[in-house]
């Protein structure tokens, strides 16, 4: 019988930390750092075109008491909400078709195709829309051949929405398709067997089952639209400017970085609130009856 005490001490190993630490340092230095500094910057002052570190509420007062800030704020909120609703509704039938009506290989190809534009130049695509939607552009030229138009599509909310959708539609379609594909088909079959009409099945069975995925897709759509400056600027005419355009104008002209920071912080607060609301809705357990 051995009487010596077993040694349970683990030798120190640098191995786990090697993989864990790099991203922590990197993100604190270049992600958390900049964001926190931006919040701090919203309290700085600008004197003689130079930023002075301070803790004053001047910028906040200046921005939040101005009508143009709130005009921008609500415009951005409305446009992003509109974009979220329109994109989600337009994407749903297509995602439904991709999830239930086509073969898995077609679905894979469709997703493959939808992923590509997400990683290609958004800027060039918006410029292309600019040309297509213009007064003498492709669409009006086509409509003219059947005696319609010309319609003004640039510098309108319609133009902005087209731009937003260029950015968000592929992503929303992919996320919705994933959400719908993950539904257990047997449940849908069961609903049909129980005499549920296909239309009823969509909103009594399919939508509730895919709820989380659908809400996450909508949330991404909202975040992307809310933060985009290219579409409202080039296709929407930026009058009044949306919040991202306001940030650019304030930053680029007159070095008013602290005021831009106020706008950015307001955007972050809004997004965090909406994200929390959306996610708690998405993951809320169904009330037991």
């Amino acid at each position, binding site marked *: 019988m051995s009487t010596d005490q*077993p*040694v349970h001490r683990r*030798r120190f190993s640098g191995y786990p930390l090697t993989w864990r630490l790099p991203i922590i340092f990197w993100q604190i230095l270049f992600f958390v750092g900049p964001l926190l500094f931006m919040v701090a910057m919203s309290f700085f002052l600008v004197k003689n075109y130079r930023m002075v570190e301070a803790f004053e509420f001047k910028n906040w007062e200046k921005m939040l008491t101005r009508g143009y800030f709130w005009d921008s704020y609500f415009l951005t909120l409305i446009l992003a909400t509109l974009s979220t609703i329109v994109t989600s509704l337009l994407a749903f039938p297509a995602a439904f078709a991709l999830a239930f009506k086509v073969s898995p290989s077609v679905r894979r190809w469709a997703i493959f195709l939808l992923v590509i534009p997400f990683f290609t130049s958004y800027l060039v695509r918006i410029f292309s829309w600019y040309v297509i939607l213009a007064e003498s552009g492709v669409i009006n030229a086509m409509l003219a051949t059947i005696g319609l138009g010309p319609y003004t599509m640039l510098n309108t909310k319609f133009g902005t929405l087209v731009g937003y959708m260029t950015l968000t539609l592929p992503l929303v379609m992919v996320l919705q398709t994933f959400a719908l594909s993950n539904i257990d088909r047997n449940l849908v079959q069961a609903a049909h067997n129980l005499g549920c009409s296909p239309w009823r099945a969509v909103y009594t069975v399919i939508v509730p089952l895919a709820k989380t995925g659908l809400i996450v897709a909508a949330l991404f759509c909202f975040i992307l639209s809310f933060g985009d400056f290219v579409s409202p600027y080039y296709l929407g005419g930026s009058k009044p400017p949306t919040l991202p355009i306001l940030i650019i104008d304030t930053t680029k002209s007159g070095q008013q970085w602290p005021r831009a920071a106020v706008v950015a912080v307001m955007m972050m607060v809004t997004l965090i609130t909406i994200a929390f609301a959306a996610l708690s809705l998405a993951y809320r357990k169904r009330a037991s009856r």
Partner: protein
Amino acid sequence: MSVPNNRPLVVFDKVSKRFGEFVAVKALNFSIDAGEFIAIMGPSGCGKTTTLRMLAGLEQPTEGTIRINDQLMNNVKPHERDTPMVWQSLALFPFLNARENVEFGLKMRNQDAATRRAKALDWLERLGVAEFAERNVETLSGGQRQRVALARSLVTEPRMLLLDEPLSALDAHLVIRMQSVLTRLQRELGITFVYVTHSQSEAFAMADRVVIMSNGEIAQTGLPRDIYREPASRFVAEFVGLNNIISGKVIGSTDGIVSVDSPIGRFTVGSVSAAGGQGGSSVYRTGDQVTFVIAADLVEVSRPQPQADNVVVCSLISEEFIGSVVTLFLETSDGTELKVQIQERELETLDHTSGGTFYLSWRQGNAHLLPS
């Protein structure tokens, strides 16, 4: 404790392993001799795989010590041990071909390329898969992959091989073939095999000694035959073999023969085990609650009433045909189910399809009293 002169290769001393609240292994004490083929067997979650993983250093014991060759292994890292393992999933490296897989262990021991190659090919040859040496392991069949995995573990010439349910993914006919490959290899190499399985047939067919585990503890250790014929507990009796377990009260005990009164009749059971095992030394008093076991294949079944003790009257419920052997499920008048295993050709003489009464009987010596 066991074999004091000949030092065992592996000693587990009060080894416990907890994962948070869950106790996987409880104060395990046992040893493995050099050159032994030992099987650790039990239902899933009994701690058998954890025990094996502790041997390989993949888990650290929470308490207690593990010694290999008298050397404390608790803090020895997996790669510093020489305890290769054959995994249930085989865990072949999919980006390497068969030969490169086999060479892996040698490469980690910094052997030169030529030696590695020669040894790897040698082992692939030995296991009959040399022709697939340059093939992607993904393209090999289950049996071929199995052999590559074995070659990979044995190429470093270890003193002990760990096997974690290696045959569970194979077709039945391949299992039988691999069993003979394994036993032959173990005998030829003379090294220790520690074989974890939930399969009784694998354990009993190959192992010199079997350890039955249940809920993190050893339920019984012994030769396959002893475990099969003389289970040490109700758990073992239910887990191993096909046993009828009958409980009752002692109504008398003379000369090592115990009379038991059970709901289905009165029986006599020998209280001294033939092998001198665990059941032997107990003293039974009248009124004690006892349980005895009679294996299904030791029960005789007949249509005319036999002139014997230990007879039960039953009706046939169903039969399960496995091949040369048939299991009959019968029921007594009070609803107790009993199982009988007989040769298929005996079935005809029974005229079993016509219903009616069957008589089950067994020799007193074949029944085995469980230690209380």
